């Protein structure tokens, strides 16, 4: 038998069928106290599944009506008596300032990069390298010190 198969079998024999850990004595009283506390809450402060059926139905209907009214009013307000082409033109008009800002940023970036002193670029690169180094060190420290405490104990 291979070593790993033997290890699985030995572990199975040692671990399966062990008696459970005794729960703390306080567990039962905690559960009863929490059940009592929750039962004292007024119905609308409990979770939705515990609301009375009529209240749940009314709540759902009210919300559906609100969503429908908002949607219908919103669409009617936007479209009004306009044709589809007019509506599309209106949407494009709203988007125009955003597109203008994007286009300006696109044009500004190469200008800034050319105008920026090279020292700044080196500083940005150094910050990036430092960030990556610290990230790597943290990952190594985490994996060495936190993930393998038992391994440390074994050696």
């Amino acid at each position, binding site marked *: 038998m291979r*070593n790993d198969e033997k290890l699985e079998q*030995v572990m199975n*024999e040692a671990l399966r069928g*062990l008696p*459970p850990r005794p729960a703390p004595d306080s*567990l039962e009283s905690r559960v009863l106290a929490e059940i009592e506390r929750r039962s004292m809450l007024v119905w609308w402060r409990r979770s939705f599944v515990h609301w009375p059926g009529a209240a749940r139905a009314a709540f759902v209907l009210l919300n559906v009506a609100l969503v429908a009214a908002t949607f219908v009013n919103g669409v009617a307000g936007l479209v009004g008596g306009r044709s589809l082409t007019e509506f599309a033109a209106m949407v494009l008009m709203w988007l125009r300032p955003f597109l203008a800002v994007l286009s300006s940023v696109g044009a500004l970036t190469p200008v800034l990069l050319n105008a920026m002193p090279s020292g700044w670029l080196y500083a940005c690169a150094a910050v990036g390298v430092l960030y990556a180094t610290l990230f790597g060190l943290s990952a190594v420290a985490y994996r060495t010190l936190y993930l393998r405490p038992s391994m440390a104990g074994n050696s």
Partner: protein
Amino acid sequence: MRAYQDMVFSTASRLTGSDAQAEDIAQEVFIRAYERFADLGNSPTAGGWLKTVATNLSLNYLNRHRKRWRLFSEMHSAQDEEDSPQIEWEVPDTLLEDLGSEQRRQWVDSVLHQLPDHQRIPLVLYHFEELSYQEIAAKLQVSLTKVKTDIFRGRAALLPLLQARGDSHEAMDI
């Protein structure tokens, strides 16, 4: 509740590795059972239902906790997952055979908490909750290879800890 509280608490405690968290989870399990008492009252499946809920709530808690650490803890290379770790020592024929079941339980629970989460959780699901590798991979949302590797490494880390009981189980008896 008294018939099942030890089982529910054990499941949560072994999975989370924290007694305080296990007590909170056990409390929530029994409150949910109380809310479904009409269905569960005399059902023969009540024990299985309680165990499943305890397992799922524990995994939910661990998942929330893991998200904070995911960035670092899951930076394993593909090589890391595929490597088949070797056992460098002799595997004994039996373990803890000289101890009574309660003493064995105490020792196992004390050393189980020393394993890191990513080894303890699949190990507990496999050896205590008796889930298959596939079921564990689905529950933990990790690859089958990772589950097998973590369980293997968990066993390899647990073995010397269990064997070390000869030095200290007398102290536990006091």
